[in-house]
């Protein structure tokens, strides 16, 4: 391949020139350069035509992607195509991923390497979700990007850890590698890693489609929670080395989920897959069930894979079942708190009781603790908005120690106050938490 040089000018398809500033990375499809165009910094992915089965077809598809535009602002979408050089080389410009986002690669390996501004030495900086909320929200956001892509009739050809960028404080997600997106059922012959690739695609039986994406989605979500590969266990590690035949076997014809309920021959190995061993039993049954279904029936039958709606429901529930103990601060899922009766959890660390509330649209009860937020989709069954906070458990500013729920939405609710009467609760107002509390959110009713 022909590498670009610092200072070199690259002409864009529809006019203008990008100036190469430096190389910032290299991957299986070419190199990525930092370039300047129109006074802004951009990433220029410069393709190595020898890595493509049909580079002309790839360019044609890329052109379509650029002109279609991004279906959702969370995609780092190809913006401008360059002209082809005399020997047929070309690239495309995308926006730079903001520094507040970390590559999923770094989240998985726990650190990133940065230049210390004082000493200019390379140092390791930990990369970790700062809150449980952020981790689960990241999962919901990943689900949502897949939905937006599928709604636009497109799918991923190939994904890897490097395609996901996550804000570890908020759980916001950006998707890179969008130059590999195509219309459904096209096959660009793009080679990749087996990790995210559905078994039927590994075996060459199917083209990339919504179903192969559902497989990739399950893998991404599994990795967010369990930090490991769902198919890499004892059986895989026992091989001398990972040869092509082994890949075909372990990720294709003989793919076996590490937590398969009826076959323990590919269980995670201590020392290598510690995260999966450690976390598997800490999650509630419905989470485990979803992954078991995805990686047992869903391995051989693409129709059995969970779609975005199913995943979203599961993860919104998981997020709603996070408890943060008001006293000792222990934060975890309800599955790791003791339950003393049908309505109360007990913190196993400090013994504090945590109350719950029942929403008419859920079969389960939601824990109530200071700082707990209720999202629009939780109080309005017709809403898909999992990010807007509609209510929050807060302490009364004038009466310290008295906890209540504040209406952060723009609608008026009704709540049963300790006087036994229902009162209107307008935006910005609140009401105390008490034994007989009932709330009318409109379409959803809640009761302590």
């Amino acid at each position, binding site marked *: 391949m022909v590498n670009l040089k610092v200072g070199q000018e690259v002409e864009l398809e529809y006019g203008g020139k990008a100036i190469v500033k430096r190389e910032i990375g290299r991957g*299986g499809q070419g190199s990525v350069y930092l370039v300047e165009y129109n006074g802004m910094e951009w990433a220029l992915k410069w393709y190595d035509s020898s890595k493509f089965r049909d580079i002309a077809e790839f360019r044609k598809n890329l052109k379509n992607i650029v002109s279609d535009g991004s279906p959702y602002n969370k995609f780092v979408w190809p913006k401008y195509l360059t002209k082809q050089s005399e020997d047929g080389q070309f690239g495309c410009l995308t926006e730079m991923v903001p520094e507040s986002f970390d590559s999923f*690669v770094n989240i998985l390996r726990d650190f990133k390497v940065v230049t210390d501004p004082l000493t200019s030495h390379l140092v390791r900086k930990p990369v970790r979700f700062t809150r449980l909320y952020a981790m689960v929200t990241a999962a919901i956001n990943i689900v949502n990007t897949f939905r937006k892509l599928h709604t636009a009739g497109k799918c991923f050809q190939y994904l890897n850890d490097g395609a996901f960028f996550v804000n570890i404080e908020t759980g916001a997600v950006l998707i890179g590698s969008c130059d590999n997106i195509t219309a459904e059922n096209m096959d660009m012959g793009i080679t990749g*890693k087996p990790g995210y690739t559905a078994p039927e695609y590994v075996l060459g039986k199917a083209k990339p489609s919504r179903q192969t994406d559902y497989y990739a989605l399950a893998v991404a979500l599994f990795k967010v929670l369990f930090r490991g590969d769902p198919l890499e266990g004892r059986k895989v590690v026992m091989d*001398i080395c990972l040869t092509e035949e082994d890949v075909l076997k372990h990720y*294709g014809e003989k793919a076996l989920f590490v937590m398969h309920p009826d076959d323990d021959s590919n269980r995670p190995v*201590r020392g290598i897959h510690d995260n999966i061993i450690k976390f598997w039993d800490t999650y509630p049954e419905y989470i485990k069930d979803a992954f078991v279904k995805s990686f047992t029936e869903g391995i051989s039958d693409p129709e059995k894979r969970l779609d975005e709606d199913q995943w979203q429901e599961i993860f919104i529930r998981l997020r709603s079942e996070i408890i943060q103990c008001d006293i000792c601060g222990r934060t975890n899922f309800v599955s790791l708190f003791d339950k003393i009766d049908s309505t109360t959890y007990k913190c196993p660390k400090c013994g504090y009781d945590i109350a719950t509330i029942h929403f008419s649209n859920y079969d389960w009860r939601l824990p109530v603790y200071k700082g707990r937020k209720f999202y629009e989709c939780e109080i309005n069954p017709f809403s898909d908005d999992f990010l807007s906070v509609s209510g929050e458990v807060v302490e009364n500013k004038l009466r310290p120690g008295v906890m209540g729920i504040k209406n952060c939405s723009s609608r008026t609710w009704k709540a049963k106050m300790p006087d036994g009467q229902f009162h209107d609760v307008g935006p910005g107002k609140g009401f105390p938490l008490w034994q007989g509390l009932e709330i009318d959110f409109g379409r959803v009713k809640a009761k302590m």
Partner: protein
Amino acid sequence: MSNKNNKSAQESVKENTRASSLLDFDDDDPLGATAVSKKSLVIFFLIDTSGSMKGKKMGELNTVMEELIPEIRRVGEADTDVKIAVLTFSTDIAWMYSIPISIEEFEWSRLEASGVTSMGAAFQELSARMSRNSFLNSPSLSFAPVIFLMTDGYPSDDYREGLKALQSNSWYKFGLKAALGIGNEANDEMLAEFTGSKDTVVHAYSGGQLAQMIKVVAVTASQIGSKSMTLSDETNKELTEEDVMTAKQKMLGQQIQELVKQDDSNDVSFDTGW
């Protein structure tokens, strides 16, 4: 690996996968994940340091290798731990470092040339080290190693004996093998015996070519080596094990040949102008 070893490895793995006991509070934080263990790839460089390499060839090689390390660092996929091991052979054989060193920390130590070409002994040594009990002891998944031989002449010992030992080593069988002949004396046919295919043998007659060939081969091999798979080209056909068997080695051959064709350096040959 012998049957006995196999069994005990299996047992110890089984032992290790028993359901974990109850976690304590500090240990059940879902955010407290440890780093995901990386897959490992060892790149073996087998380098001829016999007397005939003295001078321009050795100087050139040292410079190229120094430049190559950061380049491989960039190529390496983030989820792969790439390690380097350098075995030199002249009258004696020697490893540059006693164990393979991670690419992040690897520093090239300049080589000097003298003595004869004990290539057979180097093959024997490599075969002995390419084992789970020695250099390839990463606990997590390993990719097949990359083995890159560079020489400028004909072995002075019985290389066939050494090659035989190597050929019975499974890691060698699965490994990505490439060879570079330097100057007119190097025998491409003998090198093809080592790599198992003519496609992965290249030749450099000049300093410019040497630099280019080493980079092409090492970078391409580490790219292919750290990739888990090659997907099918014809999607209507279901892949079988035979289809993918040695697919990487073939791919390496193709890519090397393609890149070699692009070579247009025409500077002074190693063997002329003395």
